[in-house]
């Protein structure tokens, strides 16, 4: 757990990539679009940034390659990625951290109003 906490906070693109994979395996382009949607078009990744992050997450063992669950009609072989157990733990830890921040902010603003 200490090891996970030492890796927090996550950078925004990393957080959104992990979050996009939390619902199941996904391929590169789907991740790109999911990050855009989840961030309400605030985070738009280039392919270089996306795959740099994917490589780092693979190296850290937070995501892994899986067979593409969606049939693919293109010439190129499509690879999909999925969260590993440790990736899911990191994501949950980050979500918990963000919740605490939001709670603190809500308490503070509630006190100010009252």
């Amino acid at each position: 757990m200490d090891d996970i906490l030492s890796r927090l906070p996550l950078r925004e693109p990393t957080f959104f990539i992990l979050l996009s994979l939390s619902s199941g395996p996904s391929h590169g382009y789907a991740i790109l679009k999911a990050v855009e949607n989840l961030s309400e078009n605030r985070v738009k990744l280039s392919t270089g940034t996306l795959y740099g992050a994917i490589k780092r997450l693979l190296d850290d063992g937070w995501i892994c390659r899986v067979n593409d669950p969606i049939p693919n009609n293109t010439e190129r072989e499509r690879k999909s990625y999925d969260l590993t157990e440790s990736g899911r733990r990191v994501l949950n830890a980050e979500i918990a951290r963000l919740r605490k921040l939001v709670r603190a902010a809500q308490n503070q603003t509630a006190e100010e109003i009252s």
Partner: protein
Amino acid sequence: MNVRTRLMMRVYRALLSFYPPAFRCEFSDEMQGVFAAALAESQKPVNRKIWHLFLREVCDWPGAVLQEHLRAGRRKMFSDKLDEKSLPRGELLAAMLIFVLPLLSIFATKIISLPRSMDFLLLALFWSAVLFAVGLAAVRGVPGWSLPYLGFVLMLGLIVIRYDRVWSWIYPIFIRLFGARADWPVVVRILYVGTFGFIVLFSFLLIALILVNLLRLLPFTRHIWQRVRADWTQLSFMLYGGLVFGIMVTFEEYRYEEIWKLAAWLCLALGAWGYLRARIQKRRFLALLCGASGAMWVITLAKWVLIPYQKWPAGYPISPSIINRWTETGGTLIGWLCVLAALAAPALLNLFPAASGPDIIEGEDPAIV
């Protein structure tokens, strides 16, 4: 696919070729697929979106390429975990002895003022340990614990044999470039002292590299090459041992230097301990960097503090003046940078072909044996 998207794809492929080869090999196809899909989609609702997409890729490209090259460089410089086994206690103590004995000597004679005979005894023990270690290293195929001892002897030989010669090389050059020595500004004086440190350290490293490469040619010494090739920080550790002698020399003719010497050697000893206990190459290297940096900063501070209190005889190359205070302190800082560079330089061994020939003897730690 129209002409414009074909051209964009071609430019994109060209940009991909700037990524490190391993990264390209792993992701290039996928990235092209994703980019092609993004291009196709961006044409659907409004055609000008395609330019936004393309420009975003181009703008992000330098940063992404640089980041991947840096990551690839770091991976190349440090291998992962070297070995699970920890170093046998006997070998650990043997390696630490060269760093601890000078400490004990100062502590016993200057701090708690034991009789003079104790100083002599510790000095005799120190030199016996050095001679014994070098002899044993020759017989046992340079085990890892003997590396700092070899570094110590190599540095001693280099400074004793080449000390005057190095000064006699650089002195005429500086005279020709900057005129009479008395007129040199502080910066030139610092550069002069720093150049000496640079030449000594890199000569040391060059000799060590040549020796190690020669070992590679002989069948009965090839395992030493294999070991150093598997973990280049061993050469750094050898150089680190040479710093023990460097500290002895740097305070020659100084008064009131004992406590500073003690602190500098303590830093070296802590760094060596960290190195010998670490199981990961990066941590080993960091331990050496921290130990050497600590020692060099102590020396820098010591010179700044001590120089006004020195009583050097007339005719001694430097006097306790304010200019020399700056010169010695600045020169030591340049020396520190040279030490850092010299400790990192053995990473260049990674450019040599991987070790071949008979495997490292089973049961031996490839990094430390």
